[in-house]
């Protein structure tokens, strides 16, 4: 029996900036996990992965990361990637704060 497919987001690091990016539903790369497309169909996810892997001049190290149905990270590593380091608000926390200000 094959294992049921669990929801994923497609993620990578940006080639120039180095920061964490996610694939959005419109096919662009976004920096905010909340704007990422949650992939619930395995074939769909594999196609997106192969397509994204071709974009070698935009992103590096593309992979599918597990998320909940609501699009929240399942593993704490993905939590840190989505927010930034815990010792300084230098990662995505900084830009989130900037938006709030």
């Amino acid at each position, binding site marked *: 029996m094959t294992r049921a497919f669990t929801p994923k987001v497609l993620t990578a*690091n940006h080639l120039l900036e*180095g920061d964490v990016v996610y694939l959005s539903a419109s096919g662009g790369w976004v920096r905010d996990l909340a704007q990422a497309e949650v992939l619930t169909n395995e074939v769909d996810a594999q196609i997106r992965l192969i397509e994204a892997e071709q974009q070698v001049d935009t992103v590096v190290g593309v992979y599918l990361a597990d998320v909940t149905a609501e699009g929240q990270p399942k593993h704490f590593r993905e939590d840190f990637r989505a927010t930034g*380091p*815990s010792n300084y608000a230098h990662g995505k926390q900084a830009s989130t704060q900037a938006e709030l200000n």
Partner: protein
Amino acid sequence: MYQYNDFDTAFLTERNAQFRAQVERRINGSLTEDEFKPLRLMNGVYLQLHAYMLRVAIPYGTLNSAQMDMLAHLAAKYDKGYGHFTTRQNIQYNWPKLRDIPDMLDDLGTVGMHAIQTSGNTIRNVTADHFAGAAADEVADPRPYAELLRQWSTDHPEFQFLPRKFKIAVTGAEADRAVIRAHDIGLQLVEQVGEIGFRVIVGGGLGRTPMIGKVLRNFLPMADLLPYCEAIVSIYNRLGRRDNKYKARIKITVHENGIETIRDQVETRFAQIRPAFTGVDQTLLADIKAQFAAPDFAKKSEAPFTAAYDADPVFRSWADTNLTAHKAPGYAIVSISIKKQGDTPGDATAEQMRAMAELARTYGHDELRISHEQNVILPHVHRADLPALHATLKAHGLATSNIGLISDIIACPGMDYCALATARSIPVAQQIATRFDELKLEHDIGELKIKISGCINACGHHHVGHIGILGLDRAGVENYQITLGGDHTETAAVGERAGPGFAYDEIVPAIERLIAAYLHLRNSPDERFIDAYRRLGLAPFKAALYPAVNAGGKADAA
């Protein structure tokens, strides 16, 4: 200090130009990531969790003030205003942009610095005792030999694709402050009937399989240093395993082949290549040595020191904790703690770096050092200048009196930055330091080395911490394993695992129980944690760490 000659400058300029072109080709799509990755790693560029990271070599941990100013400049211009000093005496920038990195390398080149071989399966930055050239207890300054090794190993054609990375550490003193027994090659300057030579230790290392290095030669004449090291690396290059990354370091080669076999092969190879070293290296060494001549030490009254020491308890506490004996009369070695309780171990802001550079210019014969314990050292300061120096340090948040104490924690970047991490280390260090500061216990506890790694690679040296903490991922949750009794010095030992790991929110209380047990068990305030541990063994400390198990009648205390 060693000044780059025309050859060094030309080499570096060309190398930086090559890398700039490689970055351009990556950006315009002519190089794939697979092609580019080994090239960027050869130049110290990693891709980490949130960004690129540039690791800059600080050869044998020695800097002058212009170099420290340049490190500050990079932090302010290309990063987020700070840098992270590492256990390999390097500095890491956590947020550079790919396009900026060639400019950063060019800037570094103007002060004779680079990022070459700070990654990849090559001979890495040669590290040394951070008190070298100043310590009262050394046979000779090890840095000229470290510089000779740096020049020999940089771009050495035979050693660019070793089975795995290769690290060399050098010290000139019996008291080992350079962790030479946990390096691929550890070198100790020793004196034998009036002649100076090296004790050569090989096959030490931490990581997945920690090993204490073994003596390969008790006395190697000084003139044989390069051919002998070349023989070692060459034998490793031939015998080292390439089939399994986890068995590729020389510690495994030595372990699997036995030290006798390695010694025989090294000696044979050495005999073959020795004649090729016709003395050019010795001429070079003489030039290098001249550049490491001791500064002109001042002779003046120590009265200002004594006055401040008697009058100011804060200065007194700092002087008692952060100073080390110097070989020159009237002088002291100053350790500047960049481990203020609650801050990130090893981080310094651009402004702090500039302040330390200025202090080195004004009071420190223009010299600074980075220690493997992630602090900054001013190796030569006259005691008369210490009160003024301390006042400046205070103004920059750099006067923490905690060298060698419980809050002087080594912590690797862990999962806050490192792509290989299995758990965080920085917040654990911050919380331990803050907690014991609140308890006002750290001076009472005395010398204690806590070392934290965020994964089995052990960059935080946890195996050789009196208390080692290793962060792991246990079924998707951070879990921290404690080892006890490790020692990085001349009495090197790998710590013993205390038992099951602790959750993130349990680790600080566990350390607190451990310390309470030590304070109770020690036979006098002079008995350090490590000494009490050696006297009593694991059992009473284990009982303190796992009280519930003992209460349930399953005590393993013998």
